[in-house]
């Protein structure tokens, strides 16, 4: 089989792969072919070293010590915030809130913004391709406030139609919450246009960027997003850490989400006053190493260049689709014109669970099932798909292995 070594721009992606120690592992006696980065990416040595360095040399609680070590830890921690602000071009570090991940970021907004701004009969508009993390928090907020959830339908190609979206905006719409890149289909939504249309009616917009930031340059000011949420672990960083970007004008008006240390200014039994942004939303000792690991991941990606990463992954996606499309009875889900890093498919007459199991035995890690998007799967009338998702460290060889594996498994199962 032909294996063109793809080199996007001047970047040698074979060398990049060598930065990821885990990719050297064998699985079931075969070299690991890791195609589940949308669930969680692998981490480069640079990130692992930063975590190790923190615990070896800097470990102390932040924002409270009088001693030098605590100051150094605080500096490293806050440096992570500056890096995150730079990464998404936030207007100010006050707008960058550390959370546990995308899910917590969305829950924070649903709870706090919802308590303040959702009234009975208000509408929350989401799309039909949302991850459960961008559905359930809104349902909880609706139960508490009397607001109602509205859903923009998904087309057969796995897209939303912008005029349908526009028509669903109304005077009752209190917030739009939409995914930037679909984790199940790879669809890149026209979020800039969506935000423009919503803002024309003075409706704020939250974007779930979990699957966007690992693969493309994101500029929250250019998008004019009111809230933008993502997880470190999907973009080469550590688990349990993420970012909620929010415009200061909203964050200032929102009540605290959780109470505890860090988030207060003064506490008496009669009345507590809250700390300023971003600390108002960061109760308790934060994940200090998470911020440091995220900065290392950001530095790593910026050194390669987000545009190079996007170009590389686009080539890989195209290559993978070409390799797979000849396979007898294969059906792809998600044929959006703008698509990123995800190949979701089924083989006629084969249960995705069976296919995933046999691929695993061949050392190929894919995800099978509903990908936390059950309503989307219901929309397509399927229980789930097999999903191969890519990252900058994947190679054309990985996709050759996938295609060969799918053919072999298909022959066994049919």
């Amino acid at each position, binding site marked *: 089989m032909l294996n063109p070594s793809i080199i996007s721009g001047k970047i040698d992606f074979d060398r990049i792969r060598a930065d990821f120690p885990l990719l050297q592992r064998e699985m079931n006696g075969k070299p690991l072919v890791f195609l589940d980065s949308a669930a969680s990416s692998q981490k480069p040595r640079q990130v692992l070293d930063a975590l190790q360095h923190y615990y070896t040399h800097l470990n102390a609680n932040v924002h409270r010590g009088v001693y030098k070590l605590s100051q150094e830890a605080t500096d490293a921690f806050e440096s992570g915030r500056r890096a995150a602000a730079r990464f998404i071009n936030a207007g100010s570090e006050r707008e960058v809130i550390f959370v546990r991940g995308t899910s917590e970021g969305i829950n924070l907004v649903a709870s706090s913004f919802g308590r303040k701004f959702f009234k009975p009969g208000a509408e929350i508009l989401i799309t039909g391709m949302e991850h459960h993390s961008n559905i359930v928090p809104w349902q909880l907020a609706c139960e508490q406030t009397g607001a109602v959830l509205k859903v923009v339908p998904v087309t057969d190609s796995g897209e939303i139609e912008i005029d349908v979206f526009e028509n669903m905006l109304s005077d009752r719409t209190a917030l739009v919450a939409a995914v930037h890149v679909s984790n199940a289909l790879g669809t890149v939504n026209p979020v800039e246009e969506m935000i423009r249309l919503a803002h024309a009616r003075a409706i704020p917009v939250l974007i779930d960027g979990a699957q966007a930031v690992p693969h493309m340059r994101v500029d929250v000011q250019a998008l004019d997003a009111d809230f933008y949420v993502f997880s470190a672990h999907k973009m080469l960083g550590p688990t349990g850490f993420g970012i909620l970007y929010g415009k200061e004008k909203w964050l200032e008006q929102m009540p605290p989400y959780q109470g505890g240390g860090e988030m207060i200014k003064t506490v008496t039994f009669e009345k507590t006053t809250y700390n300023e942004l971003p600390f108002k939303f960061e109760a308790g000792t934060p994940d200090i190493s998470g911020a440091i690991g995220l900065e290392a991941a950001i530095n790593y990606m910026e050194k390669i260049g987000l545009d190079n990463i996007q170009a590389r992954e686009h080539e890989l996606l195209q290559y993978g689709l070409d390799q797979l499309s000849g396979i007898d009875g294969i059906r792809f889900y998600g044929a959006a014109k703008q698509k990123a890093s995800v190949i979701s498919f089924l083989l006629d007459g084969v249960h995705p669970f069976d296919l*995933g199991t046999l691929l695993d*035995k061949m050392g190929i890690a894919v995800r*099978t099932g509903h990908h936390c998007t059950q309503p989307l799967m219901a929309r397509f009338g399927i*229980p*789930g798909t097999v999903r191969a998702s890519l990252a900058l460290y994947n190679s054309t060889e990985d996709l050759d292995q996938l295609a060969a594996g799918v053919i072999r498994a298909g022959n*066994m199962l049919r």
Partner: protein
Amino acid sequence: MSVQDIQEEIISEFSFFGDWMEKYEYIIDLGKNLPIIDVQYKDEDHLIKGCQSQVWLQAELKGDEVQFTADSDAIITKGIIALLIRVLSGQSPKDIAEADLYFIDQIGLREHLSPTRSNGLLSMVKQMKIYGLALQQVKS
């Protein structure tokens, strides 16, 4: 044959396979050849909900013996039930309820299943034993 004899037979069969792909090939074959369940039993009452695949299991007493039939939408799952049925179908309710299914570990099935599948396997075994217990009471 007793529960133990059949388990020994399966363990011996599996010892001839070279690698796990061959074992899976065999399990898939078993799945394809599992006698089909009467459609009337493919309902909510007979459904064992797994995370990713569904299993329908039905049991009835014929004389002293329990007869199991089953189906699944996933073929590997079906093959695994076929193995369980081979061991437990035709046994007495008491033997089913008390069966120690050591063959599952001996052939390495449990460790070779993903966590989701392994949980599914445990639910199947549990359901078969519940049938055993229930039918024991019907008998007495």
